[in-house]
């Protein structure tokens, strides 16, 4: 009887564990089944590199959106990565214990703010700021990049900080005993040694930026065109789905699912790259 109970509880936990995996499998199958036909019909090359997106006329080219996603994400990385890494160095190496106790939960809180709030804030403050100081419509790559940079900070900071703190104490002491000063120790010993963790942090942060939808819908302007400057409005893969899914049907809907496939692949690649790098350690 006891043995039976043991076995039963094991099974029950297994079923619950399966449920989370099976949702992943279901979603994957679902978007592939829904989206693959349109890719097959239009042709993979025409779909991914097509310049024209006009579903009512049967034109399904998502290249402007890919450019949009890439440019906003790169912009976010250019702003967020240096700030994030410097912040993690500060927390791991310079901050007094009291300050660290304040900073850490504050940064975690940043991760807890709903993305629509970020978008709303961006629309009310950042967009007008850009319009007034740099010109253009304000709704732009730059606005999206700023919002996403802020949203990726918690990921980048906490993972880089953990990887800096996880370094053996001997690295630091060995370097200091050589007569290096604190900054030389950080730059030439600690950062190289924590490199894999920091790179993983950056990639996970970028993954978050690529997938973000709600915040950027509100500040990007959503024009389907290849942008010429960072002050131009763009549409990303995610916002394309978010905006049009509500009224799309037929081939149009299929094309949105196909957009989802492309997004899915990009994020999978980024995440597995991050996993590969952390494991190599």
């Amino acid at each position, binding site marked *: 009887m006891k043995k039976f109970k043991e076995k039963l509880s094991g099974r029950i936990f297994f079923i619950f564990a399966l449920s989370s995996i099976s949702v992943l499998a279901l979603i994957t199958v679902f978007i592939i089944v829904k989206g693959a036909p349109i890719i097959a019909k239009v042709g993979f090359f025409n779909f991914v590199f097509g310049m024209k997106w006009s579903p009512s006329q049967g034109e399904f080219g998502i290249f402007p959106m890919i450019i949009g996603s890439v440019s906003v994400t790169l912009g976010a990385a250019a702003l967020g990565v240096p700030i994030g890494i410097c912040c993690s160095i500060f927390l791991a190496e310079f901050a007094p214990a009291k300050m660290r106790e304040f900073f850490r939960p504050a940064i975690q809180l940043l991760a807890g703010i709903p993305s629509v709030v970020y978008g709303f804030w961006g629309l009310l403050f950042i967009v007008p700021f850009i319009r007034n100081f740099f010109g253009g419509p304000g709704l732009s790559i730059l606005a999206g990049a700023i919002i996403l940079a802020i949203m990726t900070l918690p990921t980048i900071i906490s993972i880089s900080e953990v990887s800096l703190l996880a370094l*053996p104490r001997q690295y630091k002491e*060995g370097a200091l*005993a*050589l*007569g*290096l000063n604190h900054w030389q120790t950080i730059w030439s010993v600690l950062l190289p040694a924590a490199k894999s963790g920091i790179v993983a942090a950056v990639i996970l942060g970028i993954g978050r930026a690529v997938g973000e939808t709600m915040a950027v819908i509100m500040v990007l302007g959503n024009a389907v065109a290849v942008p010429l400057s960072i002050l131009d409005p763009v549409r990303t893969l995610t916002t394309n789905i978010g905006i049009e899914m509500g009224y799309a049907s037929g081939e149009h809907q299929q094309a949105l699912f196909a957009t989802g496939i492309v997004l899915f692949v990009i994020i999978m690649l980024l995440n597995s790259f991050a996993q590969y790098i952390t494991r190599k350690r």
Partner: protein
Amino acid sequence: MVQNASKISVSGLNFYYQKKQAIFDLNLKIHANSILSVFGPANSGITTLLRSFNRLCDLTPGAHMEGQILLDGKNIYAPDIIVTELRRKVGMVFDVPTPLPMSIFDNIAYGPRLSGMKSKKLLFQSVEEALKMAALWEDVKDRLSMPAASLSGGQQQRLCIARVLALKPEVILLDRPCSGLDPISTAKIEESLSHLKEKFTIVIAPHNVQQAGRISDRAAFMLMGHLIEEGPARAVFANPQDQRTNDYITGRFG
């Protein structure tokens, strides 16, 4: 350099970690160009003493000290002392080898580069010289560009010694440098230490009494933060003045 001049002189040293006292009223003179073994059971304050000589214990939060440590007659805790310069003068080798995450060559060239040596030729010379002094040159001369982490434990430890030597220090502190090493690597390190004392002052925390007996000119026995006895090594080991030293050496405790 005058033989037997005192290189480091410690007087009235009390050391605390927060409220816990680790070293009690310690007075010690360390002679130049000799090997001093500071030995004793774990938790006797030996590591703390060594780390106070190059101010590495400044890093521990809540640590503070009273008393004086003079290097060549100059207080190393004086406000005008530049700590990074002090640490280059008083090099340290740890119980766990600490190669930096870079190549063998760069590990050793790092110190000289920092002090402004740019010429490739000079750098190579000082790397070669340091590796030869640490008895590692023959092992690694064909693979200087390999990562230092690819060396064996014993080689890594000799690399750390070479790295300290390349800084042209005056004093070398070794904190149980052979504790994780096999007897052959240990013998190699002891062998190179006996040559090095001609140029440097060496303070070593040996990992056992036998090692202390093999290599030292003078020996100091510490117990629970107190310096029990210090003197010429032969005298301390053959004819200890204090009962506790005798008990420890003969293996009655520790």
